[in-house]
């Protein structure tokens, strides 16, 4: 009998390569993972045998991930670049997956036609589309596809005992192992164990007449017969497993993953977090959900029993935190490390042959006959059409998911950044991208400059990162406390990491950068803002690395591709023959276990109908719930919630629709008045929680207090609003608030002042700056400094002045010592100082000593966002001395000072007042520095307050803050002895620059304020300008 080419398989390949192969060019680069693999590939392309890469996490080893896919992309990149390599590997993955599904289908069902249907369904399976086009998990896809190819070979080895099958199966296992580590571990359990069960079952069946005669006794007998083949295969694969990626295992042992668990959507409760349910449950299952009764029915037939068990476990594990079962089954640790979506992936792939069988029976088999007889041919067409429609709907929906809900920021043109890093020795420092999403990996791949961040968190080494459940610093705002907290440490003490440049693609981070003492350098032509920190030393010429022995480097560089070559040689003739059909192939032994489909069980038809009906009801209910949530104006509370939601998302047109139409505020007027407000609350805040108190309510009127909490990069803001609500025509509306009528004094105004520019005068050269072009560091003088203890934390407070003639950027580093002069802690000044000073300007400062947050209390990480969160460093001993190192660098930007303190009212424990901006820049986030003095006019504490709204040009802005309770503050050391400016002792500067200082000037600025523990305060104004003009 001549074998004919399987038209369905050819059709599947044709469509699969055409559809996926063309769409990857639009999807793959914006997936979560693809660019990470590209970065690794770039590493191999640059230094094939050297596993250490300095570019991420202050250095990490690529031996922390199986290398085959990366090395393949790397080697292909020599032909046509990295992206060519990535797309080629993706295409190979697509072909391997479709053919793998075909062979798996053939193995399971023993029917070529059904296998053909399986491969066709694999092309359109939503789980594959999601894994490839949304997650971009190339190694996972390749490893799984090759595992599918290996399964028939394993079957044949165990069944027939022919050594050639042992060779083919082990060669394919080796390729799987070098592609991905998790797939073979779990593939062994969930695919190969049931397969072995099936082989034994088939062997048992050979011994008996019909299925009913299969008893456990016969089964056990057959198992013993095949035992040694199983053991040989098992040991063979175990050896490959260990040996092929030996450096990986050694590295895992040497650098155990210390990373605290990072939340992942696949562990959520899918009913609570519906977005996770959609991505990790509904999409991968897709149309299969409707067929679950049939799938379970078939998998629990005798032959597939073990697959049935495996499928059940995979299905349950894939439901994440929806039920407590996965957590109990896997244990707390495994549950928090594994991403559970892979179980769903495997379950849905495992179900493909059964799905193929179902479709076959529906299209041309017994189910068609049954339905046509029972319900008529129209109904058959409807059912068939619905399933086909459902499949297509899922395909279109999954493919378009990224279009409607982009998971990544817009594609960034990296060239300007790469050029920037290449220029002027900028790559001598580390950089940090902010708001780049997974595209940061693509940036890293294109430059040799190093970053403190990275995108493969298992390889992290810095405790600042491993102790936080954050994916990347780059997107730290999505990780609340931990995120911003972690980021703050890098921003406050950047010298520690030689971090000098930040590329900001998200203006959310701008205020924290400014108040940590960073300055804007330039906006690149792709719109990315470059921030720079002064006084950061370059990376030393020699940086440490963890070296491994040469033989590990060599086997890591050689074995992976070697496994591919070996597998290719061993399997080639078979693949070739299969493709060309030039010679008759040995029949797969599994082909004789095909069942004949002559009678479809009516019970299953019935059950499936019930199940489908049930699912439709569930979906309808979900839809109704969604509709109810949109009924925003049925109660005062709803309309307020909706209004603040709209404000939060800056949907001002929607917000306007909740305003009482009788208030005669036009939309354009509303937009105008909303859009002119700038400040931390309107431009940088995210609504964190909202509570509505209805104070009084009657039929048509209501009055409510709205308590809101907003997250900003700087602090958590609580703000209460009061609203009057009116019911008009059955709908509740919010009474429009009056807007500030404040009229600026002038319409057209002029302003002049001193502006600065600093450039090296050197010619363009690759050499260091000539010594005669190095500017003198501006001289600062520390006027006061003392070590105080307050609320169990130690702080250094004081005042300093720029005594030079040019503006200065100030970096202040304080170190604590005990009596034995041992260093206890050091930290830099963060928010509590003005980082930019004009000549003769004074700032108060405070340095707090922050530890690496939560490093000791991993299990009590606060669940919600709190940017104010502060972890005092734990000191082993009482600090008694301090050292203050103050560095000035000439500054030319952020020197706007034109804000006056217009009004001030001191009340009991609070301070109220007005700021007035008389210059020509809008101050987006004004900050007040409050210095507290005792009755002897000695400084005792420094604190800061951020105003919630900005001060527009020639406008006023009011503030109202409580004053601190300073009872119990304790001065430990009050000496300027160890204070240094630009490396010189402060005392000598004082003598030279300001021999006749008049101290009373300062004191005249103090506001008498009787308070809790203090008698005077001083108010200084500082401000961040979001859009300098």
């Amino acid at each position, binding site marked *: 009998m001549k074998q004919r080419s399987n038209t369905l398989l050819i059709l599947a390949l044709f469509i699969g390569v055409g559809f996926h192969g063309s769409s990857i060019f639009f999807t793959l680069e914006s997936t979560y993972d693809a660019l990470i693999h590209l970065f690794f590939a770039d590493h191999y392309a640059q230094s094939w045998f050297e596993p250490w890469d300095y570019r991420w996490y202050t250095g990490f080893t690529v031996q922390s991930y199986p290398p085959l896919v990366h090395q393949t992309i790397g080697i292909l990149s020599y032909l046509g670049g990295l992206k060519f390599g990535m797309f080629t590997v993706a295409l190979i993955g697509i072909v391997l997956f479709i053919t793998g599904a075909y062979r798996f289908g053939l193995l399971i069902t023993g029917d070529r036609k059904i296998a053909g249907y399986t491969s066709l369904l694999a092309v359109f399976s939503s789980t594959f589309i999601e894994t490839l086009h949304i997650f971009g998990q190339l190694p996972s896809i390749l490893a799984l596809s090759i595992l599918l190819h290996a399964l028939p070979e394993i079957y044949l080895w165990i069944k027939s005992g022919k050594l050639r099958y042992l060779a083919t199966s082990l060669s394919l296992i080796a390729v799987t192992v070098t592609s991905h580590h998790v797939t073979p571990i779990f593939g062994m359990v969930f695919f190969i164990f049931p397969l072995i069960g099936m082989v034994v079952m088939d062997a048992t069946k050979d011994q008996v007449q019909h299925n009913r005669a299969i008893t456990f006794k016969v089964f056990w007998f057959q198992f013993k017969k095949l035992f040694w083949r199983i053991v040989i295969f098992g040991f063979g694969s175990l050896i490959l497993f260990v040996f092929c990626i030996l450096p990986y295992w050694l590295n895992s042992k040497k650098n155990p993953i210390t990373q605290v668990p990072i939340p992942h959507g696949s562990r959520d409760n899918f009913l609570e977090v519906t977005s996770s349910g959609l991505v990790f449950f509904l999409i991968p299952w897709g149309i299969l959900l409707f067929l679950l009764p049939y799938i379970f029915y078939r998998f629990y037939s005798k032959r597939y029993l073990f697959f049935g068990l495996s499928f059940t476990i995979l299905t349950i594990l894939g439901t994440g935190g929806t039920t407590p079962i996965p957590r109990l089954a896997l244990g707390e640790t495994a549950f928090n490390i594994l991403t559970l979506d892979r179980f769903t992936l495997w379950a849905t792939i495992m179900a493909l042959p059964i799905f193929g069988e179902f479709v076959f029976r529906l299209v041309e088999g017994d189910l068609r006959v049954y339905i046509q007889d029972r319900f008529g041919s129209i109904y058959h067409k409807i059912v068939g059409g619905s399933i086909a429609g459902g499949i297509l709907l899922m395909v279109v929906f999954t493919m378009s998911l990224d279009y409607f809900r982009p998971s990544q920021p817009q594609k960034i043109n990296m060239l300007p950044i790469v050029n920037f890093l290449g220029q002027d020795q900028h790559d001598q420092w580390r950089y940090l991208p902010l708001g780049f999403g997974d595209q940061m990996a693509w940036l890293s791949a294109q430059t040799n400059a190093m970053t403190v961040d990275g995108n493969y968190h298992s390889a992290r080494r810095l405790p600042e990162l491993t102790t936080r459940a954050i994916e990347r610093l780059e997107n730290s705002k999505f990780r609340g406390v931990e995120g911003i907290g972690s980021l703050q440490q890098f921003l406050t003490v950047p010298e520690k990491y030689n971090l000098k440049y930040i590329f900001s693609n998200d203006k959310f981070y701008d205020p924290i950068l400014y108040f940590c003492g960073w300055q804007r350098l330039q906006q690149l032509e792709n719109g990315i803002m470059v921030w720079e920190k002064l006084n950061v030393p370059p990376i030393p010429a020699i940086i440490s690395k963890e070296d491994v022995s040469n033989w590990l480097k060599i086997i890591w560089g050689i074995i992976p591709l070697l496994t591919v070559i070996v597998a290719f040689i061993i399997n080639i003739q078979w693949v070739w023959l299969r493709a060309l059909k030039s010679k008759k192939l040995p029949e797969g032994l599994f082909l004789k276990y095909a069942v004949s489909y002559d009678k479809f069980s009516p019970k299953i038809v019935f059950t499936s109908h019930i199940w489908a009906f049930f699912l439709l009801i569930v979906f309808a209910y979900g839809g109704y719930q969604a509709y109810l949530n949109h009924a925003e104006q049925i109660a005062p509370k709803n309309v307020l919630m909706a209004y603040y939601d709209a404000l939060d998302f800056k949907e001002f047109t929607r917000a306007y629709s909740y305003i009482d139409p009788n208030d005669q505020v036009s939309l354009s007027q509303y937009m105008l008045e909303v859009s002119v407000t700038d400040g931390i609350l309107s431009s940088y805040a995210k609504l964190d929680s909202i509570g509505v108190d209805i104070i009084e309510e009657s039929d048509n009127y209501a009055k409510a207090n709205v308590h809101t909490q907003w997250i900003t990069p700087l602090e958590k803001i609580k703000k209460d609003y009061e609203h009057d609500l009116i019911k008009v025509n059955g709908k509740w509306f919010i009474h429009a608030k009056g807007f500030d009528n404040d009229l600026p004094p002038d319409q057209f105004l002029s302003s002049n002042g001193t502006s600065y520019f600093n450039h090296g005068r050197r010619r363009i050269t690759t050499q260091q700056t000539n010594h*005669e072009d190095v500017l003198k560091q501006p001289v600062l003088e520390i006027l006061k400094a003392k070590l105080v203890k307050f609320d169990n934390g130690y702080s250094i407070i004081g005042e300093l002045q720029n005594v030079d003639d040019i503006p200065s950027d100030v970096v202040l580093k304080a170190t604590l010592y005990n009596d034995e002069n041992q260093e206890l802690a050091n930290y830099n000044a963060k928010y509590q100082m003005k980082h930019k000073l004009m000549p003769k300007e004074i700032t108060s400062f405070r340095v707090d000593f922050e530890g690496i947050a939560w490093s000791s209390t991993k299990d009590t990480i606060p669940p919600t966002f709190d940017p104010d969160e502060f972890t005092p460093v734990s000191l082993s001993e009482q600090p008694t001395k301090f050292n203050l190192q103050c560095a000035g660098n000439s500054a030319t930007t952020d020197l706007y000072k034109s804000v006056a303190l217009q009004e001030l009212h001191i009340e009991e424990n609070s301070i109220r007042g007005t700021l007035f901006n008389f210059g020509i820049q809008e101050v987006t986030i004004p900050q007040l520095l409050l210095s507290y003095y005792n009755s002897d006019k000695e400084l005792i504490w420094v604190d800061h307050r951020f105003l919630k709204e900005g001060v527009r040009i020639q406008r006023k802005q009011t503030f109202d803050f409580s004053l601190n309770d300073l009872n119990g503050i304790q001065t430990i050391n009050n000496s300027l002895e160890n204070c240094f400016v630009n490396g010189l002792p402060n005392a000598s500067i004082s003598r030279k620059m300001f021999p006749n200082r008049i101290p009373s000037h300062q004191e005249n600025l103090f506001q008498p304020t009787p308070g809790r523990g203090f008698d005077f305060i001083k108010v200084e104004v500082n401000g961040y300008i979001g859009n300098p003009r």
Partner: protein
Amino acid sequence: MVSNENGSFQLLTPVTEVVAGHAITVKFRANVVDDVYLLLNNATGSTLVPPNVEGDTLSYTFPSSFKNKAGICSWNLVYNGLSHEEGQLNILPNNSYPVLETYLGPRSISAGNRDFSMLVIAPTDSYDNPLLDSTRIDYSFQFKEAIQNEFVYTKNLIGWERIFSPKESGQILVAASYDNVNSKEFVTKVYPSIPTDFRIIFERNHKFADGNQQIAFITDIIKDEFGNVITDGTMVTFNIESSENMILQTVGTTLNGIAKGKILHPNKEQRWNVTAYVIGAAQSNTLVVDFEKAIKSFDIEISKDSTTVFVKNMKSFMQQLVPDGIPITMIISKPNGELIETKTTTTRFGKGSFSLTKDFLIKGSYEIRIESAGITKTENLEIE
């Protein structure tokens, strides 16, 4: 002539002093020619030199790293692990093509003869050897019209001189030369010294406390003790003590010695005492600024249905409507003094209004107090 059982060597070139860069060859007559090496030692290292053999003459040529380096270079003739001959050469700097390494720093100093920049000159030969001590270096510096020529002798490899700042601000150009070799031009900026006391005046459109006009405080030209106008950008703080004993503040940075700080007029009658400071260094006279009442009075009107309180007829000093944005506060309380509510608004077209949603004001009598521009008025409200 040294000889022993292993060999005998005779130095043929008894030179002790050479000039750097010139070829140096040391020759010996010897009875053995194999494995005889010359060991060279100078301040930076050692090396072994193999001989060039011609008959019984061994000649050793110094490699350039040794012949170019000024200073003592000692040699040993080594054979069989023993030193047979030794000597030393004094290599002198080569004066033919000198180079001047010149440094001047810091790049900026302050005026007044106290502060200085230091000029450091290290003359070297073309092989980077410092020239001998007591080499005379000429240097010049220019400030405004005057150019001074001076000289200095090198000592311990360098010549150095302090260049003290003059009393005037400006910039000093410095150059050095030696033997027709000239340095680049070096610049040090002389910034003015510490500011001295100054005077301030104020500028305003009118004297009324309308809360809307700006008043500017302007310093005269602030100078240092030598009469130099202080640096642009110097921070001047204008400290305002209001008659309510509040310390208000505005700031200005100087431009050509003049700083200007602005602030709005208060919105009620006040007296301000204003003093400006360059903190720690200088202060101004104290200005007394009086602001007169701009708004003399206003009317309160309650709508007939008791839902709105209007504040009307807010007129400024020329009977014009007050500029928009004057804050008005309304305090509603019960006759027994119990506070019900405080509301604020701002004026528009000389008017302001508060709405009283009557659902919440229960029947009874209330006292409505309106405060604006330092004026307080009360009105009674009866709700039936």
